[in-house]
């Protein structure tokens, strides 16, 4: 049996890192770098749009149906996660799966409100700016939680998930793992 298996396809990995870069750079350019900030916002929206069809058309672990579990199942996983007894998932675990949806929705909302601020009708309007900043803060909080969740899973299951999102391969599942 090979020591590793391919989990993340190249398209998913490229979209993941481009989206992460666009969001981080957009955050960094939020004050006083308007042109850069706008284009980074469009890039983030484009990467989100690029991810969606892959959720139905992509290979197994890229599909929403593979990683979106019903609430009851997700709650049970959350309890075992807190108790540090959660099983290892080859794809996204149930909490990670819903985090993907939350992150994509937050990027879409942040980009949309940012774009709205640039339209002639809503240019300079205070509530649009406030809403955009609020969306961006929610997105950043989610991204921080995402990184913390990944870090915890790395530690618990003794594997480098960041590297797996770079080369796409993960350790061959053991008996107690969920492929």
């Amino acid at each position: 049996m090979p020591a590793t298996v391919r989990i993340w396809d190249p398209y998913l990995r490229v979209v993941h890192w481009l989206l992460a870069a666009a969001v981080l750079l957009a955050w960094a350019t939020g004050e006083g770098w308007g042109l850069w900030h706008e284009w980074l916002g469009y890039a983030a929206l484009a990467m989100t749009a690029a991810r969606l069809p892959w959720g139905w058309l992509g290979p197994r672990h890229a599909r929403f149906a593979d990683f979106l579990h019903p609430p009851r199942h997700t709650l049970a996983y959350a309890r075992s996660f807190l108790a540090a007894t959660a099983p290892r998932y080859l794809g996204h675990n149930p909490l990670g799966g819903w985090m993907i949806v939350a992150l994509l929705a937050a990027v879409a909302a942040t980009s949309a409100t940012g774009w709205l601020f640039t339209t002639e009708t809503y240019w300079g309007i205070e509530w649009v700016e406030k809403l955009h900043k609020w969306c961006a803060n929610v997105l950043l909080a989610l991204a921080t939680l995402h990184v913390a969740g990944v870090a915890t899973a790395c530690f618990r299951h003794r594997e480098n998930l960041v590297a797996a999102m770079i080369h796409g391969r993960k350790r061959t599942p053991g008996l107690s793992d969920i492929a």
Partner: protein
Amino acid sequence: MRVLLAAAVLAASFAAAPAHATGLATCDSGPQEKWQPQEKLQKILTERGWQIRRVKIDGGCYEVYAITEKGERVEAYFHPVTLAPVPTQRR
């Protein structure tokens, strides 16, 4: 553990991200009591055909969000004492 630490540092650096003062322009404008009122600037610009959306203070300047008489959306800076336009870095 090192990864957890890195995540914590990352989170802290986001939380500490500075707000406001965009650095697009700065005005050496002294105490606010000596500034001309915002209303006066708004009146001048409105007479020029601008549609004023909002006036903020940034870097000691008045920062105006407006639609110009040509229909362009602008974020323009003015010195609060002289009300002269202040050039900004476009970036």
